[in-house]
């Protein structure tokens, strides 16, 4: 499966979570290698999770925003056997020249 196919595919059952502040509960974005109940973020950080289905898989996108530091990141992950596998991260932060993407190959 190519990333571009995921981007172009029709998404169904789209659920857009509310903006929250601070720690991200692991159940919202379960990565088995993380040991703690929460992903720790301070009150400067806001986040929300979007869920959808496409190409026969369940997907989640984690949006993370820290306005005081000008950091924005979206993380795309696919559900595999109750765990999430991160596919890519698309982000902007003021310490890098512009928008860029990290791929998990």
């Amino acid at each position: 499966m190519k990333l571009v196919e995921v981007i172009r595919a029709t998404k169904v059952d789209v659920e857009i979570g509310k903006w929250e502040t601070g720690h991200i509960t692991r159940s919202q974005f379960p990565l088995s290698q993380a040991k703690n109940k929460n992903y720790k973020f301070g009150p400067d950080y806001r986040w929300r999770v979007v869920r959808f289905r496409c190409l026969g898989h369940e997907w989640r996108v984690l949006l993370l925003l820290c306005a005081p530091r000008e950091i924005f990141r979206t993380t795309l992950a696919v559900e595999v056997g109750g765990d999430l596998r991160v596919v890519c991260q698309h982000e902007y932060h003021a310490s890098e020249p512009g928008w860029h993407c990290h791929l998990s190959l």
Partner: protein
Amino acid sequence: MNDRQFCKAFCDEVALREVPLGYVLKTPFRRDDGDAIAIYIRRHHELDAFRLEDDGQTIGYLEAAGVDLDADSRFEALTDLMREYAVHYDERGVLLHTGYVHEANLPALAVKFSAFLLRVYDLLLLARNRVRSTFRDDLIAMVESQFGASCRIDLNVPLQESMKDYVIDILVRSPGNRVLAIYAGTSEMKALEALLFWRESREQKVQHVRSMLVLEEAKPRDIKDRTLSRVMNSDILLASMDGEEIAIRRKMEFNLLN
């Protein structure tokens, strides 16, 4: 050779930009995801002083990568580093930061804080699950190189429908339908899984399978002595990877093909 060339190499990538909180300083050092390590500069207006902060993600990043800062010696390593570099941890803000200093002292402090952040990222190298993952991958590669041409190899599958809750790390089936169920002994949980599988096989009178637990080292830190004794006293084949690869290959082959 002159010092300007070195100076240029260190400084070319350094950049300072304004952000709502104050400033962000891009350092010439990079994290393992390729992004530059950034330092944020927060101004205290009343004191007319500044402090340096991380991006508020360092601790979360380490924990998400498997470093368990709450439970073990890695927390000690972090607090030792914080003491050495006079850095504080704001638990509520999830921030690593220095004390406030006057503007003239900021550049020298930034060099020190960069060194601190680099060393904190080195804690990732101590992440146990990273070591475990390498060990498991090495074990899979070894089994595939040994039996890939002659046997069927499946990863993370049960032996049969009646044992579907018992997922085996590496399942090797010989052409004569003998099976080796291999568990990578990376944790107490894995050793217990191997024991449970062995007991269930005995219960269901499965004759054609041998269970095997392969440890990374002969004295595993993460498996309790009592559990290891139970494994030794069972029919589970026990092996240790530390320098004994050829012997393990022989042991696997003997139990699978004879």
